[in-house]
């Protein structure tokens, strides 16, 4: 700047001064001794110190207390203005100064050296301004930045959690799928109920057992028909194990129940149930299992029957042997006695009676104890004659009860059969009818040529043995041909009708019964002409 005339200098000084005082930024100048030589209006305003107070003071007197970020005081050793003067390089710094009133001011400082026309450094000029807004903005930006980082981190975490949850859900879903498949494939019927006992799920096996399923509330339980195997009583809705599990927390194991399925079949099942509880121990539902044991039951029943039969057979054989010996001895004695000439007519008659009685005893031994053998000799048998002879066995009882025996058959009716077994068969049925008849009752016997019922139309005979006695209780109808089934409390072994049925079947025939309680019973037996035609 080569305009160094006094007139110009004065004018330019005035101009400069006005300019400087009108600046927005604070300005101050230092000489080489760091004395403040100029302090503009903006500086006064910003710092609170007026020019008079600071002019002539050294900046290293620390009036302004310039400190940096870390609180380190700069004015003594680290003054930006001094650095600018010393190095000739402009200095920029963001620092704090102390306002006259004592509060801290955040300022941006720009210091540069002043040179004369010869380029010699004669002082420094510092421009500073309030950068608190800038600082605030910076801080806000930083805060935002930090917040953003945190958000990012949170997002990442949520992302991971979500992925994890998805994995877990998939695993759960797979696991549920497995469980459902397992339950559906179990060979045991499974039912679920909810906490109220409503039936909500039935697996394939259960539906197979019951021929379907009924869902819904406890009133649906009545749709499931069952009877306790031990008592024969119907299972009431509230007696079902499912109900007890849900209401009382009861666990039931393998209750034997006879059921009638939705498609009308009769089966036997094991019924079990247990309650399901949540982590607090409250009942949230029940699980029921049903196992079809019909086969097993029948198998077991058959086995027990055979064993009973075998042991009964053994016992009967032993008893028979024991009593037959004395019977033979008595018969022989009577025979010898009967031939004794010293007997008078009355004595001889008595011998005859005794003989008859013993004969009856022998007969009973043969028929009652000699049941079911594999002797299968068939011969031509006169069925009508056998029937007559069988009635004779019960002549005493028939007479005592004034039973009218109505024989409606032609005398000669033949089939090829085992005579002994037919005798046994007729004796059984006639015995039952005679027992059932009231005083003055009627026993009907009939034999006619016949072609078998149904498709076969085999030729043979139909034998009818009927009475007008008390009849068969309908509840027992389905049991009467079973071995060891008897309604007579003191007499009988329950084998009569079973043996009778077996004999008829062995001959390739069929046996039927009709009965009306209080009115009477009719047995009808068909025997084919010969076993060959019976094709058994």
């Amino acid at each position: 700047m080569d305009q160094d005339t006094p007139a110009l200098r004065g004018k330019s000084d005035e101009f400069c001064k006005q300019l400087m005082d009108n600046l927005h930024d604070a300005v101050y100048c230092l000489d080489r001794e760091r004395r403040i030589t100029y302090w503009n209006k903006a500086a006064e305003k910003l710092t609170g110190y007026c020019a008079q107070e600071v002019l002539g003071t050294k900046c290293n007197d620390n009036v302004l207390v310039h400190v940096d970020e870390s609180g380190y005081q700069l004015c003594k050793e680290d003054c930006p203005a001094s650095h600018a003067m010393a190095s000739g390089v402009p200095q920029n710094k963001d620092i704090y100064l102390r306002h006259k009133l004592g509060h801290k001011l955040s300022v941006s400082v720009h210091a540069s050296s002043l040179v004369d026309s010869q380029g010699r450094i004669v002082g420094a000029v510092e421009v500073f301004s309030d950068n608190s807004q800038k600082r605030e903005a910076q801080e806000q930006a930083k805060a935002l930045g930090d917040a953003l980082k945190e958000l990012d981190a949170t997002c990442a975490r949520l992302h991971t959690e979500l992925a994890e949850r998805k994995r877990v859900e998939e695993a759960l879903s797979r696991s549920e799928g497995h469980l459902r498949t397992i339950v559906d494939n179990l060979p045991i019927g499974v039912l679920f109920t909810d906490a109220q006992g409503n039936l909500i799920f039935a697996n394939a096996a259960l539906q197979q057992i019951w021929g379907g399923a009924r869902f819904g509330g406890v009133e649906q339980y009545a749709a499931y028909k069952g009877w306790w195997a031990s008592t024969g009583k119907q299972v009431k809705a509230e007696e079902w194990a499912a109900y007890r599990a849900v209401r009382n927390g009861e666990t039931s194991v393998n209750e034997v129940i006879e059921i009638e399925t939705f498609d009308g079949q009769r089966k036997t099942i094991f019924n079990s149930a247990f309650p399901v509880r949540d982590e607090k121990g409250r009942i949230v539902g029940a699980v029921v299992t049903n196992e079809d044991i019909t086969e097993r039951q029948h198998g077991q029943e058959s086995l027990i029957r055979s064993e009973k039969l075998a042991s009964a057979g053994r016992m009967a054989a032993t008893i028979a042997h024991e009593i037959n010996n004395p019977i033979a001895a008595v018969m022989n004695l009577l025979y010898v006695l009967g031939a004794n000439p010293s007997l008078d007519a009355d004595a001889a008659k008595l011998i005859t009676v005794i003989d008859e009685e013993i004969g009856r005893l022998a007969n009973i031994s043969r028929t009652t104890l000699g049941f079911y053998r594999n002797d299968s000799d068939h011969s031509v048998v006169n069925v009508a004659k056998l029937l007559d002879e069988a009635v004779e066995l019960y002549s005493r009882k028939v007479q005592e009860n004034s039973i009218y025996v109505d024989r409606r058959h032609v005398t000669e009716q033949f089939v090829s059969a085992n005579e002994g077994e037919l005798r046994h068969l007729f004796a059984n049925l006639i015995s039952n009818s005679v027992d059932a008849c009231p005083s003055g009752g009627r026993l009907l016997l009939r034999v006619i040529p016949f072609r078998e019922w149904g498709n076969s139309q085999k030729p043979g005979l139909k034998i009818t043995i009927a009475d007008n006695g008390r009849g068969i209780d309908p509840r027992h109808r389905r049991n009467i041909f079973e071995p060891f089934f008897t309604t007579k409390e003191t007499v009988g072994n329950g084998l009569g009708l079973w043996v009778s049925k077996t004999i008829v079947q062995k001959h390739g025939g069929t046996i039927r019964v009709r009965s009306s309680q209080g009115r009477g019973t009719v047995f009808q037996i068909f025997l084919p002409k010969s076993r060959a035609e019976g094709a058994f």
Partner: protein
Amino acid sequence: MAIARCKPTLLCVDDNQPALHVRQLVLESAGYTVLVASDSATAMEIFSSSAVNMVVSDHFLRDGTGIELATAMKKLKPDVPIVIISGLLNAPEGMEHADLFICKTDSPPQVLEKIAGLLNGRS
């Protein structure tokens, strides 16, 4: 009442004395000569040393069964018919070693008829 032509000799075996005795009486009343034994050993002795036309034996004997006795006897004299008479209602196992089974529930006339029938069949 069937009676054999010549007086055949029957050997009766039973370990029950009264039963044995009364069977003897019945058979004798039909005209047979009756030898008796109450066990297998005695029966075998008599069987081997005497001329016997038929043996009528109980099944359950003190020292063995009637079937076992029959088997032994058949080895000695296979032509002599052997009857097993027993309280059993069904013939025991091994009847192929004997000729006829009679149950003790048969009346005396029935027994005599069957014995005569068997003897006649043979002669």
